[in-house]
């Protein structure tokens, strides 16, 4: 791509470094910004840099926050004694969107995978165990991906908090809602059969 302006070229290159953005899309975005009022673009830039420099990570759950404690941990209406353990911030947003969870979170920052050089020390596991020890935690809900690494992480943490008598659960795995049985793979189907539900609770939950 040939540019008549180095300023333009630099901006395009920066946009192109973002995930999912190629050179052409970057150019489109930059040209769009060029059409805007200078003040608007100024505002846009400030918001971005302010976001990065001022954002904090919650001291308790490692979720994104505006202060030392995130809005979820600070909310006295939420059950502090229930912790949902997730891999990353995106998972927090996904679970919050369901509006079904009224506890707090703990963001691990990944899952254990020695092959990728990620051991327990690279994750926020110690702070989770501290929370279990200090706070009056009653239940830990694991909401991790159903992979081998996810399972390793669950078993590892479970062993670490076993001495404390609390409920440890994991989100259920099985047939996707609205999915057709014939398209479910055998492992999922087998697991769904093993962990089948009594119809009373199934019907109660779906309304």
């Amino acid at each position, binding site marked *: 791509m040939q540019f008549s302006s180095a300023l333009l070229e630099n901006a395009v290159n920066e946009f192109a470094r973002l995930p999912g953005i190629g050179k052409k899309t970057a150019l489109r975005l930059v040209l769009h910004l060029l059409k805007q009022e200078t003040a608007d673009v100024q505002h846009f830039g400030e918001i971005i840099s302010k976001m990065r420099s001022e954002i904090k990570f919650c001291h308790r759950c490692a979720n994104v926050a505006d202060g030392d404690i995130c809005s979820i941990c600070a909310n006295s209406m939420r059950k502090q004694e229930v912790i949902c353990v997730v891999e990353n911030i995106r998972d927090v947003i996904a679970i919050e969107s369901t509006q079904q969870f009224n506890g707090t979170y703990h963001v691990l920052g990944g899952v*254990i*995978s*020695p*092959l990728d*050089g990620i*051991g*327990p020390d690279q994750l926020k596991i110690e702070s989770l165990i501290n929370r279990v020890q200090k706070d009056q935690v009653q239940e830990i809900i694991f909401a991790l991906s159903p992979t*081998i*690494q996810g*399972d*390793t992480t669950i*078993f*590892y943490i479970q*062993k*670490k908090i076993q001495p404390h008598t609390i409920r440890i659960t994991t989100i259920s795995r099985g047939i996707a809602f609205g999915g057709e049985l014939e398209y479910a*793979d*055998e*492992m999922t189907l*087998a697991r769904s059969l093993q962990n089948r539900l009594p119809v009373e609770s199934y019907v109660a939950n779906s309304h």
Partner: protein
Amino acid sequence: MFHFENLTLVQFKNYASATFSLNERIIGICGNNGVGKTNLLDALHYLCFTKSYFTRDTSNIRQGNQGFRIEGHVNLFDEKEKVACILRETGKKEFLLKDEPYTRFSKHIGRYPCVMIAPDDIQLIIGIPDERRKFIDTILSQLSSEYLQNLIIYTKILQQRNSCLRSITETNNRDFSLLDVLDEQLMIPGSYIFEKRKIFMVGFLPLAKQLYEDIARQPENISLFYNSELMDLSYPELLKMNRAKDLVAMRTTGGVHRDDLELNFNNLPFKQVASQGQRKSLLFALKLAEMEILKNEKKFTPVLMLDDVFEKLDEERIGNLLERVCLLNDGQVFITDTNAIRLEEKLIKLKRPYQMINLNND
């Protein structure tokens, strides 16, 4: 029941573009060295197993081209199915059944059972244990997708465990809590694989021994047995016993990935004492036993591919072998040979309809 009706190759090995219609149950393929007899069989193997019998995907692209396509029409219980394997220019492989791409290739394994016998397969007899494990795993995977899934999971956990051993040893960190977790995870698919192999061997080994005696046509003192440390130790015991050794070696030194199928002749290792012909006879016995087992479990006959098997066999043995695979067997059979006249003579003798594919240009 199950047979291929045609095969189309694009930029695969030495084929720029070619279509073969496969009209008979018995198909002879002849041609000089390097015309592509084995490649044709390997293309069929791709359609059964989503991969090559011999090599990596990229080695199968025709020189100077990028990507390849293999397409075939299969007749399965009188239903026609189109199946295709595409390697894109990017190196990405796609596998389609009835124009529907698979999200997981492992799901295709076992749909089209097939048995290949190729000259290098003699490694099954004289080579390292990996060869024999792979052979057993290929059979069991075709019979049970659950077995294949467990094998895939086992391998993934094994890699994680080996990395974990490495990081413990390298950092000299004496915290074994993660290793304990991985041990427990490994035992689940590991025990499953061991149990399935053990049950399988009970039926398979006597069958292979019987077939060997049929081929040899005289009693010979051979013994075949499944050798696994898990015969004497439970999985937890084995991992516990090996832990110190594992930490030094920085890999898992015991488990189902170390099993072997032991082959003995007069109570000595087969590869040390048996002749070339005896080795080859045992190879056929193992492969024909695979055929039998697949046929019995699947309730239909697998496709059999014989690549250049006549070498080093006397006339009588060739005759016996062909009778067994073409007359006593009711599935589709592909046979390659460099010598068109020899092959044609043999096929005529069988007095069954057959098709000859001559790959020479003349």
